[in-house]
């Protein structure tokens, strides 16, 4: 939100955001979190877990950095660029990370996975060959109650290797 005053209409603000590459306007309540606003507008891949900033399920990439949707007032994302899990790949053309998570058996109940994949994507975008310690640090804020994190760390490693091979081709 830069040099702009948002107008309220029936208690709703219209914020302009770019979600997964498409510019759009969202009608949001001033009291609404970005997480709730995204879900209400159909981006339900962003999961609502703890609502206290502890679990990482609601991680989205806002202006190039993973943030927590539950602690971001939606109006403060005005003019922002957002990537949600829907922006990564599709069923027919999954992102290498999505493929690697499935192949490694890193997905059990799946609730933490959108956040985990977005945190991993940010890691690989900035550090294409992370060490295991770097992967674990990047996933510090994404809690999983099903697995022991082993498979997910493996999945990120595999995705990194696969993406490196893709770049060489």
């Amino acid at each position, binding site marked *: 939100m830069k040099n702009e005053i*948002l107008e309220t209409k029936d208690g709703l603000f219209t914020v302009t955001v770019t979600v997964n590459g498409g510019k759009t306007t969202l009608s949001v309540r001033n009291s609404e979190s970005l997480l709730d606003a995204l879900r209400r507008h159909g981006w339900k891949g962003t999961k609502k877990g703890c609502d206290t900033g502890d679990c990482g399920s609601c991680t989205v990439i806002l202006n190039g950095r*993973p943030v927590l949707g539950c602690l971001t007032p939606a109006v403060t994302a005005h003019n922002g660029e957002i990537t949600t899990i829907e922006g990564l790949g599709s069923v027919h053309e999954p992102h290498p990370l999505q493929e690697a998570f499935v192949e490694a058996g890193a997905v059990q109940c799946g609730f933490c996975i959108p956040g985990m994949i977005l945190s991993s994507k940010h890691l690989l975008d900035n550090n294409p060959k992370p060490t295991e310690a770097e992967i674990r640090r990047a996933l510090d*804020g994404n809690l999983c109650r099903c697995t022991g994190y082993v498979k997910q760390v493996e999945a990120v490693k595999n995705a990194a290797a696969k993406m490196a091979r893709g770049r060489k081709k």
Partner: protein
Amino acid sequence: MPEFIAKPASLKELWKQLPSLPSSRRYLAGGTDLVTADNAGADHSGCWIDIGDLPELRAVKETASSLFIGSAVKISELERSAPVRKWCPVLSAAIPHFASPSLRNMATLGGNAANASPCADGVCALVAEDASVLLALKDARRRLPLKDLFTGPKRTALKRDELILGFEVPKRPHAGAYFKLGPRARFGISKAAVALAAEISGGRVKRAAVALGSVAPVPLYAARTSAWLAGRELSPETAAEAAELIKSEVSPITDARSEAAYRREMCGVLLSRALESAAA
């Protein structure tokens, strides 16, 4: 969340808007404390003023004698800042212990200080760095030693509407360490934390500053232990004596996160580890 969120584009605009905003107003920086409090029903502000993008608060600037860190610079930006790594080794050591990567993309040192929790990792490190805090209320500016900003748990010397502009750390080469004990290795609130800044020459401490988190009503500057350390040889005996001394300087309580006696004991352990790492 309040019905009203204001977002001034500059400090000048902020001071202009201020009188027209609802009286129960608070500054919103990264939101990681304030929005959490609000979600838990503990914040009843009628208005938040989003200062997170104010350009005046978003810079890290070096002068001849000090480093200025804007209050709204994200913790993750500090993580990548070369001057911060160079001049604030305690803060740099504390950052990996500061919440999680996504929260570090949101949280700020200004919010960490204004929230005034005794467990604030960033603030505790900055106190050891001998930081001053720069405050502004319209045209009135003042500066305080950061340790004097805190008057109690979640209480500060900030006046109504007074804004934290940033922090100033003197440019003095020193070693730094931050040792924190939480429920997990990472991403947890501390049971006890020790921040140590030390100027060391020839195996001797020239000057030391020790600050502690979660073991007093405020992020605690340990004045007696810091003074005692000056001039001492860096040895296991010194570490052992300092560890005893620090235990008499803290006043931990028993709460949901830990027990008073354990916390007190751990202050000694963490300080001797910090001194050991500074000697290495």
